[in-house]
């Protein structure tokens, strides 16, 4: 395998197989991961996913089981003689009604999930996300009812991944690691910093073509469309670094515009935000000073 020794693969496989049944809250994709992450946000489709999966597995076992029994029992080579019947109203009613009941159960679950997802009210913070070919821009709009002063930046693929991903670069994607975790194509120059335990509303728009902002650990993706302001929310429970990617084909470098969300404790976030605001002020002052002597632009 590409990523290492057989032993490592085997243990990873075992972990993956366990995960299929147990479920884990991976912050980021791990080798041989087979299932969806439970996520780190208050809202997660994981339970819905697992219920649907098990419903499908049970139905599958029954239907395929019946098929294999039929294929074994009713073989011409075992002397089976074909019966003549070709209809049974009773059976047909049963297998119309039973699926309907199962579907009502699933629909009920899903409607609940959808309702909580759609409710972006009561957010303590707003961040505007803009998708560009091929980078993201983040603008902090407000925090705890107060407007944020000019904190915004562009976040794009960090340089070592960018060099490695060039055609025939002969650089090894395995070598790109942060804290022992491979971050090839999943790391940026400047991550989005957010506080934990705060309901954050994202306003998501597209700057040129359609993109889609997706961090699996947050449990959803939302398209970034020119001319439309979409909203979604998250409330992250654990501090950590959560990685994602653009999920809507947006041109040649669609695969190379990752997303990194760095969730930190509230106090730390507030400190970070204050520093950013100060820096913005200094920058603005410098700009004004620079611009002052220049003549006013002529129409």
């Amino acid at each position: 395998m590409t990523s290492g020794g057989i032993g490592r693969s085997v243990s990873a496989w075992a972990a993956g197989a366990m995960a299929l049944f147990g479920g884990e809250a991976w912050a980021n994709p791990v080798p041989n991961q087979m299932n969806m992450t439970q996520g780190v946000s208050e809202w997660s489709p994981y339970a819905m996913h697992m219920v649907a999966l098990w419903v499908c597995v049970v139905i599958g076992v029954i239907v395929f089981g019946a098929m294999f029994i039929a294929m074994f029992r009713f073989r011409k080579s075992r002397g089976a003689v074909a019966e003549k019947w070709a209809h049974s109203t009773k059976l047909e009613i049963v297998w119309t009604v039973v699926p309907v009941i199962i579907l009502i159960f699933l629909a009920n679950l899903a409607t609940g999930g959808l309702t909580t997802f759609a409710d972006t009210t009561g957010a303590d913070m707003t961040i505007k996300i803009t998708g560009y070919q091929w980078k993201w821009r983040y603008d902090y709009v407000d925090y705890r009812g107060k407007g944020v002063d000019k904190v915004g930046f562009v976040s794009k693929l960090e340089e070592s991944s960018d060099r490695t991903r060039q055609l025939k670069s002969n650089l090894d994607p395995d070598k790109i690691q942060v804290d022992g975790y491979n971050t090839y194509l999943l790391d940026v120059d400047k991550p989005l910093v957010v506080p934990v335990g705060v309901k954050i509303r994202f306003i998501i728009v597209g700057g040129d073509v359609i993109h889609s902002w997706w961090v699996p650990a947050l449990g959803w993706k939302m398209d970034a469309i020119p001319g439309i302001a979409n909203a979604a929310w998250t409330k992250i429970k654990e501090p950590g670094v959560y990685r994602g990617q653009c999920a809507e084909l947006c041109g040649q470098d669609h695969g190379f515009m990752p997303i990194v969300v760095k969730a930190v404790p509230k106090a730390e976030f507030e400190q970070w935000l204050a520093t950013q605001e100060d820096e913005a002020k200094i920058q603005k002052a410098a700009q004004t000073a620079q611009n002052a002597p220049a003549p006013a632009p002529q129409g």
Partner: protein
Amino acid sequence: MAHAATHDHDHHGAPKGFFQRWVMSTNHKDIGTLYLIFSLTMFFIGGAFAMVIRAELFKPGMQLVQPYFFNEMTTMHALVMIFGAIMPAFVGLANWMVPLMVGAPDMALPRMNNLSFWILPFAFFMLLSTLFMPGGGPAGGWTMYPPLSLQGESVAYVIFAIHLMGISSIMGAINIIATILNMRAPGMDLLKMPVFVWSWLITAFLLIAVMPVLAGAVTMLLTDKYFHTNFFNAAGGGDPVLFQHIFWFFGHPEVYIMILPAFGIISEIIPTFARKPIFGYRAMVFAIASIAFLSFIVWAHHMFAVGLPMGAEIFFMYATMLIAVPTGVKVFNWVSTMWGGSMTFETPMLFSIAFVILFTIGGFSGLMLALAPADFQYHDTYFVVAHFHYVLVTGAAFSIIAAAYYWIPKWSGHMYSETWGKIHFWSSVISVNVLFFPQHFLGLAGMPRRIPDYNVAFANFNMISSIGGFWFGASQLIFLGVIIHCVFFSKKKAADRSWEGAKGLEWTVPSPAPFHTFDVPPVIHDDELAHGNTDH
């Protein structure tokens, strides 16, 4: 019964000249053959594109192609497979089999039939030629979402090609409807028709309903690109999401255009090899009709992540989930058809059984995708790629392969090599699962679709998938070999009724089917029809 009517007494046979016979043909069998050869050719071209994709994705890092070319490959792979391989294959099967199954001498509109085929090679020549032009072929995905698709240089070529394919499909659909409604032999009531004919009748209506919608959508793209309209341009007051609504209003019925005839094929093959009539004939027909109806009111489930209002998400989620009911009925009825039968497992039956199991797996992932909250995770990941390849490759393509094995004795007059057919089956069915099953895991773990390179965490399953891909691709060369051997070299003559349990009018004419059949309408005996006696 029909034998006497099919003798070539003073009637002319096939024209002698190659050009006259094939290019000027108005014969449903020859045109059917042309369609099938064309679709097989496109299957290999589209497959070659898929090999490029899987080769680049074999391991992390960019080894073979530029990202832009990779996007051209994913776009072209889809366009060629959908419009070039799957749809023409079904039209080819309809051309060959519908007249034979309903006791008609030919298609209702034979000259239009010729035109609707011969448009296609030109359309695809135009589409494929963009790959060799400066600026390259389309690279915005087969769904052509603006504004991205408008950045391409090949918009005009692609849209003209799509218009031609649409015209071809609509003419084919009109022809099939006219044939089925007007040319049935006396006594072939609608509810005695084979399920395959029913499935095509319904599919043809879907085609007529939605191909013009696609034409409208792409025409608006064209005017946005070249005539400064702003249908989809937000800066000019347009709406990029409008395109998606129009496209998927076409696109979802289109999905069923590619699977309903497959249902029909499987409903012919399973009763034949189970030697037992299809279970619940009327329910089977009604289920196809219900699925066709529902296909018009589920389109926005492709758009759960565009930020629809909650009411719309709920409506499209419920409507989509409803499709599981008629689809479930079909699967249960196929299993019940096998139950109590006397089964043998020739190659067409093996492919049909694989169809039922693997299509159902694709249906399960479809049900999961229908759940909007979960779809916020699944959408645009490899989970979706796995889903639609299970329904289109092990669904639609397997049914076409099954149909080819099932009817090739009737077409060629020879039996194919059962041994090689089975080798083809086992090689295909194993490799296709090695190819697509791990893609479920990749999607759930967080790998987006349509990316040329990926994080090292996704490496192992991608490598497994690529190995499965090369293996599956190579397996189809066996199929080609079996067909060539059967048509040109096989010594084993096919009987008129090539399969012991086969019922239906097509098995009453000689093998190979003579150039003209049913010059005089056959006399219908209900017992000889596959579904003749439906009143139990």
